[in-house]
């Protein structure tokens, strides 16, 4: 038996009939085609599927799609506004906070929530705030730097226009 689920995802309304066992992450990826949210484990350890549900960071593999009924969701695809990268995205780029990039959407979404709750975290607070996400490439060194750098950018309002950092010129 299928259930109706209506959500707002990245500002857009969606309505689908889904199986009750469908995980939210599969709904986002398979029904909405939002494949930026990744799956890295079966046990809710890795955090690659982190999104925002009503402004709060959630591992989207820990919710059924039907539990998202009436909720407003933001995925990695919805973070950049009007073609302008979110300062956290820019900081991950500038600080080389990613290598293979698979865990990155989850880390960026978790970091965005962290900074929304604590705009000026200490290094220790960053590390504690992101311990639900795993990365195998970076040793976390540049992820910490990226979050620190984003915190700085975001606290100096209005947000500085991000520089496009290609080319070494």
């Amino acid at each position, binding site marked *: 038996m299928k259930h109706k689920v209506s959500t707002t995802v990245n500002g857009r309304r969606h309505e689908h009939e889904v199986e009750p066992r469908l995980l939210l992450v599969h709904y986002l990826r398979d029904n909405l085609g*939002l494949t930026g949210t990744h799956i890295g*484990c079966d*046990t809710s350890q*890795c955090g690659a599927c982190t999104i925002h549900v009503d402004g709060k960071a959630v591992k989207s593999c820990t919710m059924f799609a039907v539990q998202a009924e009436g909720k407003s969701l933001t995925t990695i695809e919805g973070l950049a506004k009007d073609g302008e990268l979110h300062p956290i995205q820019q900081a991950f*780029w500038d600080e080389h906070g990613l*290598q*293979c*990039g698979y865990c990155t959407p989850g880390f960026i979404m978790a970091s965005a929530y962290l900074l929304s709750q604590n705009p000026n975290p200490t290094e220790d607070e960053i590390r504690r705030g992101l311990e639900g996400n795993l*990365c195998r490439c*970076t040793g976390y060194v540049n992820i910490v730097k990226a979050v620190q750098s984003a915190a700085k950018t975001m606290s100096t309002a209005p947000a500085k226009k991000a520089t496009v950092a290609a080319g070494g010129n």
Partner: protein
Amino acid sequence: MAVTQLVGAKVHRREDPRLITGHGHFIDDFTRTGAAYATFVRSPLAHARIKSIDVTDAAKAPGVVGVYTARDFKGQLAGTHPAAPAFVAEKKYVPERFPIAEKEVTYQGEIVAVVLAESRGQAADAANLIQVEYDELPAVMDVEKAMQSGSPKAHEGAADNICWDLTYTGPEVSDAAFKEADVVVKERILQNRVAPVPMEPRGVLAEYEGFDKKLTIWMSSQNPHFIRLFVSGSMGLKESQVRVISPDVGGGFGSKISPYPEDYLVPALSRIAERPVKWIETRTESIQNATHGRGQYYDVEVAAKKDGTLLGMRMTQFLDVGAYVGTFSAFQACACLMAGGAYKWKGISARTVGVLTNRVPTDPYRGAGRPEATHLVERMVDLVALELKMDPVEIRRKNFIQPQEFPFTQNFGLVVDSGDYDKALDRALELVGYEELRKKQAELRKQGRYLGIGISTWIELCGFGPSAATAPATGGIALVESAQVRVTPTGAVLVYTGTHSHGQGHETTFPQIVADQLGVPYDSIELRHGDTAEGTSFGYGTYGSRSLAVGGVAISRATGKVIDKGKKLAAHMLEAAEEDIVFEHGSFHVKGSPDKAKAFGEVAFASYGMNLPQGMEQGLEAVAYFDPPNLVWPFGTHIAVVEIDAETGHAQLQKYVAVDDCGNIINPMIVDGQIHGGAVQGIAQALYEEVVYDEETGQLKTGTMIDYMLPSIGEIPPLILDHTVTPSPTNELGVKGIGEAGTIAASAAVINAICDALSPLGIKHVDMPASPDKLWHMMKEAGK
């Protein structure tokens, strides 16, 4: 854009905009119209005879397209799993391996059946309905016992469990050294079995088009051309009928080099079921079935003089091969050839034994053989220093190969290209504040606290590799690298490489090289890789820190050929002799007359026109293969500072310094990133990670991320990095590899620090992982 020097610059990555916005393309992001989903049924037992498989209920389940067992693939897939000779050409026993078990399963997770259904959920539901009856057999788990003649066998009916037993150099090679010795230290050193765990599990999507007899495979692979070679061969297709596309790859660390059973079965299913088939590995499947790394132990003896001069080594590697021989499993025997490390020895006796067990096969994992060698020699050198009451720095300095001795032919005839080991050591000692730390350690010891400083002066051989060494090691194909550079009429530059990045940033760094060479805007250059339908006829993949040192040089050479043709054409256009044409800053001009010039773009456009020198063909493109004359030899010093909590046994990594030398650097940001990630993998092997099987039943106990401990962001302190630069004479770019360096160096630094911390208790050696539980028990025992 002004012409600037891009090689050596911190150029931000081109890959990143798509990856930070959710627009990357990983394997699970692909599908094909009409695709069916595969779920594999796997053995829950480590070793058993298959009595029967009942698929009746599964076949009737909703959405099921078909249920298949081994006999359905007979005639579809031929041959056995490839096992490259690598460094052990003669193997005694290589069990036959068909991608799906028919009569016997030999590790937990081996495939016995597969369900195809309309959706993933339906495939998984139906897989649960398959009834397999097994006769359980004894599981062979202990490597030492497995070598004994009376041991049960990992494969029924086998004569023994010995896959290989090769003596590179016999005892006579080190006899003289041991006779001279004032001291001999002995140790057994374990290398814990670890799981690579790339954040993206594997996956395969295959579409066989029956009318055209063309197969397209999308998969997460470090090595698409080799997959095409193996799968086409097994399916009875020409390589030209098969296209392998490896899109963005979410990490590999060696686990996506070799072909896997699913890489054959999914394409075969597409041909059988006449529709596209998709399979995405779950994390549990990944930890259970993706090849593991390490899983070895070493018996080592080192002979030295009283003054700390190292004389000789005798070592035997015992390697847990697993239930089958991984394609590049025997490469791990290179640990023997690298056992001497950065030091001079009179003689090294080395033997490797590969032993079959009922675990998943081992294969290269970041560093493959070289982390084991570093761990072994760096541990042994510390043990000699402890015995002689010498400072670990002093004993290293005394035995280093000296800068003026390069190229240095080491004990196994390998030629170390360049190095300056003292320089990296000096810098690392300065950065860590070694003298101060020793004083602090003495103070803390008085208070009953356990601070340790561990040094790892590592070296590596990488950049595989010269054809003379690698063609025999793979069974015929030299691990050289290919490149193609194509310039379109309007001056766009397309660069194709046979390597394939899985996080290393090749789309950024390789165009940096070409931009400098051609003097054209960086933005006009694009790197393409990961698709066997594009570029040269064969590529060799990314592993063994080879992409830059082999692939980058091939790109540079292909670019050079483009320039050479450009010079001929420019000479014709400028009515000058070819030898008078100078190419610089993106422009061809006549020597001494910089105003008589043609820009690269003009020459590119002209190359597609009609006014060409006699005999010249149209177009501006070139292919190059680079067969390196030698391997490259990075080196460096890592120092770990650890304090162990006597109450809990927890080893807290307080500081970590890494000074590495990979020759000339193309992009320092990316080099640092490689060291960060690599070092943390080595640190994690030393402190946290271990694949644990039940020693009796062969049940995997660490099959999820709950049980298998990966380091999280809370565990790792900031790493302090620096570099020395000793260019490699092996290639014209002067580059060495850096992808594996951190992992090669790190475990020895951490364990040396722990042993140093615990030395007041009389503890000389600690095996990995140095868990709080293990250390607490050792400290308690020692304190008695």
